[in-house]
Structure formats: C-alpha cells, structure tokens
C-alpha cells in the first residue's frame, strides 16, 4: 500500500534548474543573438509582419539595435516598439511559451525562453525596461531581476516584480546586465570575442541589415554580408519557390544555389588553406535569420544518401534554403537558433531540393579537373557576382557542360620549407600573401626558364 503522502512523485521544476542548466547548452554569442532576435521581432511586427522572402522589400531603416559590451556591464537597447505591459505580465517572463500566447507574425523567437536564458547566462543583476505605445500615448515599466535574491526566495514564487519607469527616448526595450558571470566577464574582455560577434551579426542578420536595419556594437554600425551568386556566360544559379500547408498554416520555402566563387585550381588544399574563411556550403534561413551558415556536414546532406562528404574541391558552391511562416514553431530551427532540426519533416522533405544543385556542382567540379589548368577559369570569370535578391527564377542550376579531354600527364611536387623563408620569397615575388602553391609554381617556372630554357 502506497502511503497517501508518497502517492505523487514530485516533478516540479526548480529555479536553479532554469538558471544553471538551460544556460549551459548555449553560447554567450547565441544568447546575445536571442536578444537581437527579440528586438528584430518587434521591428518586423511594426513594419508589417509578412513572409521574409528575398523579394520582400520591407524597409527596416527606422529601427536600430545598440549593444554595449564592457568587462563589467552588458546592455542592449532598441527602438523596436517595446514589450507591452500585458505581454510583460502574462507572457514575456514566463519560462516557455504559453499555449494561449499570440503568435507573432513571422517572428524568429518561438520557444519563449530566449530572453531569460540570455540574461541569466550573462549576469545576475538585470534590469529590463520597456516603453510602448498605449492608447496613443507612451507608457513604461521596468522589471528588475536580482537572480541571487530570486533564487533565495524559494521555488514557490517564480514571479518578477514590475515597477513604473520613465519613458525611453522611443518605444523600445533596454536591457542592462551587471554583476556579470565570470565566463561572460572574461569573454567581454576579449577583443576577439567582440570582433567575432560583429562578424557573426554581419552574416546571420544579413537579410535584415540589407533591409536597412541598424545594429551597432560598441557604437559601430555593422555592414551585413553581401550574399552573391555568380551569373553570366554559361552559369546561372537556381532560384525556386515553394509553398507548403502545415496545420492550416502556410510555410514559404525558397531555394537558391550556384557558384559563389571560382573553385580552387585543384582539389589539394594548400598549407595556407583556411576552411573557416570559406563561405562555401549550405545556408539555412528561418524567418530571415541565418541559423546555419556555410554548412558542409551531414546536416545539409553532405556525406549522406550517396551524396559525397564535403571536399575542398567543391569550394565555390553556395546554396540557401529560406523558410518563412507566420508560425515560427513550424520552421526547422533549434532552440539555440544556431542549427537546423534535422528531424523536422519539413526540412527532410526539402533535402532533395538541396541535393540536386549540390550534385550538379560536384559533377561540374569533377569534370573540370579533367581539363587543362586554367582552361575553364576564363569561362568562370565571365560569370559576375549578383546579389541573391536579383537572381532570376530558374528551376535548376545551370553549369557549363565540360567535355572531358585527355590532358598532358601531370606531376605533383610536394615539399616543405620553413615558413619565414617562404614569406621572404613571396615578398621578393611581390606579394607577401601569395598562396604557397603559387610561390612553388613561380619558383618552378623561374628555375625552368633558367636551367631548361624554352620547351
């Protein structure tokens, strides 16, 4: 017989779980992105809230998000409309999205966890202030959170106090975090962290920045990546649009793929090859946010289902798959918004659409290898970079038909030299940053002309 007081296994969550555990599986950078996402959701809603297709020309130039990062303080401030008092009281501070929460139009936020997780990850003294429009006037409130005091108050009361506040300069949100956690304080002391954050913002918010949104880090505006595909001559990128209906809701899908850069001369990566600098691969975009960039892994198909694993030979290929829906929860993004949910039915259904242009590119680069060095480069140089927004609709990627041709057998020369000596030789050849391979080839030609003379 089970005693009455033991007839239920307690499954209540603890505050400590939310503060300590949910912050473990996310990087500091992604936490800051969660806060940016909230600001952008506000701006997108104010600007009309519609599917973010490439053709959409919503103007976001009125909106600005400013981030300040100091060794002892973090703040983010926007003019993107603010959180209303009702939303603050009922939804914004709830851990997880309530079922009755109104779905924001084409938002990036979906799980109702981003802001809390972000500020808990950064520090323990938090001030969230919002100014919003209410019946034609401005209204403001602030929510101060002292994490240690909140934890010490026990698990029965999870609420945060809402207090009156002065208006911000414009409707928007200002979040200040002090008493930083040690890891955040250390990262904020690293200029490398701040530069990499700028780079990641330039890439992952490229579509928003293209529409005029301003994002500042430490007072410096960030220019978004120019995402371009090459078009012209015998090259033409694909651009195809699809529409799905899931749970009575429309989901829009757009796939673009083609050549973004001229492929390397051969498949052997040089000693100075830097894969991280390489923009090639697949990009997955959910409601305007790039959640996966330059992916070359099984997540985007490489190395699965008879599709070869990524190889430097394929460099130059870029594909984008763009999902948008009024309901962000239908899109294949993970809670950290730094990857795709590979189990998503929607995503799996569109993998074949990604596979076809990838295969075409693989076949092209295979055929290209059979040609004389440099012969195909002229053709490739005819194709000029075009912003993805200007790429014309086309069901499949068009690449030149490269007829294979017998070529003179080649010998590969491989040798190592001390790097300082190579740099001195590259400098003497006129370019201290000359690729190692080019230094080798020029050295060979120099020695050949000197010792052998003309063929």
């Amino acid at each position, binding site marked *: 017989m089970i005693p009455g007081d033991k007839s239920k296994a307690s499954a209540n969550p603890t505050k400590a779980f939310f503060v300590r555990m949910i912050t473990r599986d996310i990087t500091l950078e992604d936490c800051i992105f969660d806060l940016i996402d909230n600001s952008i959701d506000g701006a997108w809603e104010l600007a009309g809230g519609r599917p973010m297709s490439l053709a959409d020309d919503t103007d976001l130039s009125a909106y600005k998000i400013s981030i300040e990062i100091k060794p002892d303080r973090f703040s983010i401030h926007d003019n993107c409309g603010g959180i209303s008092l009702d939303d603050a009281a009922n939804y914004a501070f709830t851990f997880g999205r309530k079922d009755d929460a109104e779905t924001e139009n084409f938002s990036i936020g979906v799980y109702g966890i981003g802001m809390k997780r972000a500020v808990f990850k950064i520090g323990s003294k938090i001030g969230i202030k919002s100014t919003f429009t209410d019946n034609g006037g401005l209204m403001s409130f602030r929510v101060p959170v002292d994490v240690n005091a909140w934890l010490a108050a026990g698990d029965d009361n999870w609420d945060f106090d809402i207090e009156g506040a002065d208006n911000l300069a414009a409707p928007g949100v200002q979040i200040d975090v002090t008493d930083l956690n040690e890891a955040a304080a*250390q990262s904020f*002391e690293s200029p*490398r962290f701040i530069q990499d954050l700028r780079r990641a913002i*330039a890439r992952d918010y490229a579509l928003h920045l293209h529409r005029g949104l301003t994002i500042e880090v430490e007072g410096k505006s960030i220019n978004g990546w120019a995402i371009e595909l090459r078009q012209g001559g015998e090259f033409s990128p694909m651009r195809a649009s699809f529409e799905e209906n899931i749970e009575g809701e429309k989901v829009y899908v757009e796939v673009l793929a083609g050549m973004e850069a001229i492929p390397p001369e051969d498949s052997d990566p040089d000693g100075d090859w830097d894969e991280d600098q390489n923009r090639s691969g697949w990009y997955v975009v959910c409601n305007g946010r790039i959640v996966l960039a330059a992916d070359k892994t099984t997540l985007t198909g490489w190395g699965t289902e008879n599709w070869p694993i990524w190889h430097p030979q394929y460099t130059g290929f870029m594909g984008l798959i763009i999902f948008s829906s009024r309901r962000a929860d239908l899109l294949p993004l993970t809670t950290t918004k730094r990857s795709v949910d590979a189990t998503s039915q929607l995503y799996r259904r569109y993998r074949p659409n990604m596979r076809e242009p990838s295969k075409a590119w693989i076949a092209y680069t295979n055929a290209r290898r059979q040609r004389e060095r440099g012969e195909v480069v002229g053709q490739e140089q005819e194709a000029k970079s075009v912003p993805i927004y200007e790429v014309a609709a086309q069901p499949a990627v068009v690449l030149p038909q490269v007829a294979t041709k017998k070529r003179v057998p080649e010998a590969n020369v491989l040798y190592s030299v001390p790097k300082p000596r190579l740099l001195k030789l590259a*400098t003497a050849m006129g*370019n201290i940053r000359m690729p190692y391979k080019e230094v080798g080839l020029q050295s060979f030609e120099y020695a050949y002309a000197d010792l052998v003379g003309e063929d």
Partner: protein
Amino acid sequence: MASFDSINYSLRPSKSVQRGIVFHGLKALSDAMALQNSLYIGFGSIWFTDFVMAHKALEIDEMISIEANDVGFRRAEFNKVYRSISVVEGRSEDKLPELLNQGEYQARPWIVWLDYDGALDEEKVEEMRWLLLNAPPNSIVLFTFSATQNAYGKPAQRPGRVADILGPVVPDELSREDCNQENLPQTLASLTMDFLSSVVADNARPGGFIRSFKIPYFDSVGMVTVGGVLPALGTAPAARAVIADHKWQGIVDEMIQAPPMTLKEVATLQAELPCLEDLTRARVQELGFDLLEHQIRSFQRYYKYLPNFAEIVS
C-alpha cells in the same frame, strides 16, 4: 643581421624614452605587487642596458639573457655586467619552456621583455601566446617589434598580412590607410594589445591580463612595445590601481619621436622645464634654434628620459 652588429641601440633617443617609460612603470608595479623576487628575462645582447635598469631600478638580482647567435652568445658572456646574469644560448621559443620546467623559476614572477629585432610574424605571435598562457602568476610581459611598413608587404597586402599574423582580433574593415607608414605603428600596437587581451580572456587565465604598456616610437624606423601584467587573483586590484592612476605613462597615444639634439639644445630647452604650459615653436625660435611641433611635444613630455650623448674624441 643581429642588432649587436648594427648599432648600440642604447643610443637611440626614442628607444631611451621607451625604456625610461617601461622601467618607470615596472618600478611602480613592482612596488605595488612586491616583485623584487622576480626573475628578469630578456635579450640582453652585448649591451645589457635593460638588465642594468632591472637591477638598479627594480632591485632584481637574478636575470637571464637569451642569445640565439653563437658569436653573440660568446660576446654576451664576455660583456655581461653582473655576475647574477646568466646567458643562455638558444632560441627563446625553446629556452622559455626550459626555464619554466626548472622548479626554482616556476614559483616566482617573471618580468620578461622580448625585445625583438624584426617585424611581428607568426612565430613571435606564437611565442607571445605561449608566454601569456604559461608565465607564472604576477608576471609582467613586454614585447617590442618593428613596425616598419615594408616588412608587412605592399600597401594593398598589409591589412591582410596583419590579419594573417594576429587573427580574428583584426577588424575586417582594417584599411590601407590604417597600415600606412604613419599609422602602422599605432595600428599594430592597438591590435597586438587586443591580441594579448584576447588570448588571456579566451583561455580564462585566472587574474586576467591588465593592459599596461602600449608605446609606439620612432628612431629612423617605427617600433612598437606592448605588454601587460598577468596578476595572481589576489594581486589584480593592486596592479589595476597602479595602471588606473593618472600618473601612469605606459599607454602612449602619440608616437614618440624624440629628436636627436645637441647638448647645448637640450640644456637650453631643459632650463624652461618643467612648466605647465605647452612649449611653443615660437619660444624655441626665441631661444635661438628650431624644432618641429611634434618634436617639441615629445621633448616636453619625455625630457626626463632622454639621454645625453657626447662623442669623446681622444
């Protein structure tokens, strides 16, 4: 060519100012952090100028000079100015880890000044990284390198070359102008300092890194000295207080270009100092000679550190 084969670099006026600022700063840090038991490590060459200052100003006895050149090693052994200086033969990238492996040196703070002859490159950056991550708590590290523009490639290649050397701390928008002859020393000084801070922060070294020395200077070629403190957790507040003091001179905003001057010129200008107002070019002309504005500024700011040179003809 090794520096001892080219010039006695203790005779360069801006170098003297740089050395004066560094040791003035080290003295303040040493007093605040009680670093008299430190080990001083440097490239003493055959002149040992910094070693003399380390011994006299910082009261450091035990000093190690690293010398890679075999002739230089013999000459350094011959010329060393104190018996407590040990000259070790080899490259610093090999010798520093060997020193760390010696128990007697592991538990003491190091004051390390790697005063390189050449331009910043990947090897030097790797050595900086090693030192930042391995130097004992309460150590102070300083690095000097050439910022002469041609060592970093042609103008169009320079921003990329700087990024190749220092990595992600270099902003993508670094321009050719940032890397021209005039700006390159400041640019390299700032970015190398960012690199040092990032290595320590990214690797969560306890106590962190306190930016302390950023000194671009010019004696016929642009040079840069950067460095900072790697405090133990408990000592960090005392070290930070020294750097935060308004008297701290280690962070130099304007390139030091101390003019070579005659004893007569130095004596004439020095008689006007110290004064609260800026010395003007008109005043120098009134005194009977002339200098450029930036030379006058450098003189007024750093005259205490300027050497007096006279050739003795016998």
